[in-house]
């Protein structure tokens, strides 16, 4: 019962494509939603007062858990349909992934513990800040290591523990801090009022400038990591199709800067997301169809057709529902956070 045949040759080609699209969406969702709440953590230490920190934390407290679930979907989804990629990537990225998880533990418990502490509050302020900062940094290193590729032999990782650690991955780590900082500060512009909002605006401009510099550095660096990537960007007619990506990116950044100056509340956040998606698209173009660069493609690492189909049936039914109630949860907590968080925590309303 419920077995799907493996005889459909065409599916063996199309399913990995569909699945890489779905996982790309899941990862993009993760980067956006956990990006802004990690970004709020990155800004945390610089906030001027206890009240500011309360409000910033409260703006993400009801939704952070759902945001982090996309990270589980990223790992779980890779295991689900590209289990060979999962089996090669995870040991190769052992150190940065474990460190990212540890950092996420600290910032995750900070949500609960901080609101329940008085004397030990500083501890969880720090846990939230350093946890968010380091989780972002190691995520960026994972990204950098991914882009620069892995040494593999067949379907085994053959490199060393610290292969991930290169100047390039350090730069991508720092870049992601800038990017998440931008998402976090534009989120604060959208969700807060008064002096905190003005301050968040100022921070957003700084992070925007840093993000632009980071994107420029990475964009110049990436094509020279491997010949395939260089050929993809700088050959005709690809160049004509791909030229709009950097051009739209430049325009988006300019628009975002203007919006922050003009005092808009919502659009900066969405433009920051747009900036992220453009960068993401650029990386996607550079790497496709490899999910263990530079040797293994999505077809090399995919599950059997039967396995992919079973997962796809579930995703097709459940994912729209998931999107709907996740959107509803966001809708419930729409609007600006109150100026005063009473009772030192999240029971004010």
């Amino acid at each position, binding site marked *: *019962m*419920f*077995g799907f045949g493996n005889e459909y040759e065409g599916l063996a080609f199309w399913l990995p494509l569909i699945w890489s699209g779905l996982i790309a969406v899941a990862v993009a969702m993760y980067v956006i939603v956990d990006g802004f709440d990690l970004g709020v953590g990155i800004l945390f230490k610089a906030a001027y007062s206890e009240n500011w920190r309360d409000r910033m934390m409260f703006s993400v*407290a*009801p939704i952070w*858990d*759902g945001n*982090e*679930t996309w990270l589980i*979907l990223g*790992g779980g*989804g890779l*295991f689900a*349909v590209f*289990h*060979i990629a*999962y*089996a090669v*990537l*995870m*040991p190769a*990225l*052992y150190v940065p*992934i474990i460190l990212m998880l*540890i950092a996420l533990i*600290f910032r*995750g*418990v900070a*949500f*609960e*513990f901080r*609101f*329940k*502490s*008085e*004397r*030990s509050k500083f*501890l969880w302020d720090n846990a939230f800040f350093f946890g968010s900062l380091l989780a972002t940094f190691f995520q960026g290193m994972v990204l950098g290591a991914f882009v620069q590729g892995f040494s593999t032999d067949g*379907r085994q*990782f053959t490199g060393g*523990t610290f292969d991930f650690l290169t100047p390039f991955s350090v730069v991508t780590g720092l870049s992601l801090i800038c990017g998440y900082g931008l998402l976090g500060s534009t989120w604060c512009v959208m969700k807060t009022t008064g002096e905190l909002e003005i301050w968040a605006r100022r921070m957003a401009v700084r992070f925007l400038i840093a993000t632009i510099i980071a994107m420029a550095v990475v964009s110049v660096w990436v094509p020279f990591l491997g010949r395939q990537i260089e050929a993809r960007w700088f050959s005709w007619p690809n160049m004509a199709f791909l030229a709009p990506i950097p051009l739209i990116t430049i325009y988006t950044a300019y628009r975002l800067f203007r919006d922050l100056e003009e005092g808009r509340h919502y659009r900066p956040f969405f433009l920051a997301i747009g900036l992220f998606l453009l960068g993401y698209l650029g990386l996607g173009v550079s790497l496709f169809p490899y999910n263990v660069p530079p040797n293994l493609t999505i077809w090399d690492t995919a*599950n*059997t057709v*039967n*396995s992919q189909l*079973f997962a796809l049936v*579930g995703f097709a039914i*459940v994912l729209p529902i*998931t999107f709907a*109630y*996740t959107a509803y*949860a966001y809708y*419930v*907590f729409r609007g600006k956070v109150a100026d005063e968080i*009473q*009772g030192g*925590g*999240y*029971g004010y*309303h």
Partner: protein
Amino acid sequence: MELDALMLSRIQFAFTISFHIIFPAFTIGLASWLAALEFNWLRTGNPLYRNLFRFWVKIFAVSFGLGVVSGIVMSYQFGTNWSRFSEYTGNVLGPVIAYEVITAFFLEAAFLGIMLFGWEKVGDRLHFFATCMVALGTLISAFWILSANSWMQTPDGYAIENGKAVPVDWFRIVFNPSFPLRYAHMVMGCYITTAFAVAGMSAWMLLRHPHDAPEAKLAASRRSMSMALWFAAIFVPVQIVIGDLHGLAVLKHQPTKLAAIEGNWERMSNMPLRLFAVPDEEAETNRYEIGIPKIGSWVLTHAYDGVVPGLKEVPREDRPPVWPVFFSFRIMVGLGFAMLGIGLWSLYLRWKGTLFTNRTFLTATMLMTPSGFGAVLFGWFTAEIGRQPYVVYGLLRTADAVSPVAAGAVTASLITFLVVYAFVFGFGSYYLAKLLRRGPDPVEDIRGDDIGKKPKRPLSVPDEGIEGRPGHRAQPAE
């Protein structure tokens, strides 16, 4: 024992999963407990239920948070430390795990926010719906993860192609032979764990006040203890029956595990029920054995002359380590019968009318607070160690499942996890203890203005700081 990447990864996995399972075991039960409290509050308008909800939801939030962060670690460890396991089973278990994420984790996470922070924004009915969805999410999550783990115990519906498991029949994979009973056993175990935690903590709060203290101070704790003990009295016997049926299934599908559980070396009929023994793996025999003749066979096969398999039937290298399995199982069963005792005692005291005043009983109930956690942990030790030396029973050895990672990297990560979990768990326990010391709000505070009518400000978790000034509470936020 050589401390190579394999052994270190096993220690790390055992440690992180044991730490993790404590929280789901508690929150699966607590979520349903909260739904029951909120249902009663909406049905009766009795503020006592509201205060209880407000109190237990804080405990829930802390436990759930710890469960989430320790759970994310699990979903990556399959790859970081057990990549050959992932490669071998990915075609089968990958989709099962993915189903857990999309059907359960998102449901829990989205509605958790509304449950903790959204009461005033969404109104009573939707809030109750959110609480129910969180509870449902915990049960769905347990469904998939138990299915995946049960497939590792009793694999079915697969074929082996190119040295890897590939799916053939998804129904037989998800509903593999050991799954239905193990799911029932685990969910019931979680509910009972919560029942004893709630009863024990309530008993502690009652013990802290003299029994002639004002009714308002005691009412909420009395009610929660009473509800929890009703649950225990009814469902601990049910759990014992499920456990017995599960034993029959283990006998059928995992005879070697069963032999280790029983400390049975020779295949035999009329096996004694071994209450105590020290299994000696070198000599392949038990020392200091104390048993009741024939009862062992009867318990396992429901016949006195039933035949029970022995460890010697398989070569040494295919046997699990005997003594951890043997003792873990006995500790679990012992705790189960202690719980049964508390349940029966509570019925007797109810009949006598001294349930809330018998201090010996209250002290015993308080001491039983962690009993469910112990039973769940030792039950899992039995299940997981009993499956050794295989990670997928009969198919893949644990030694063949480990990642190509350096022992040094695993040593470092293991030490980091030990330190970080000790730190986080320490503070978590400290804040839970603070919450418990405060207890639910006395009922008289609110009775005056909103008994019998819809409260203007229902219970969206007023969660004030709990350190510092004793007796300080946030004022009702009018």
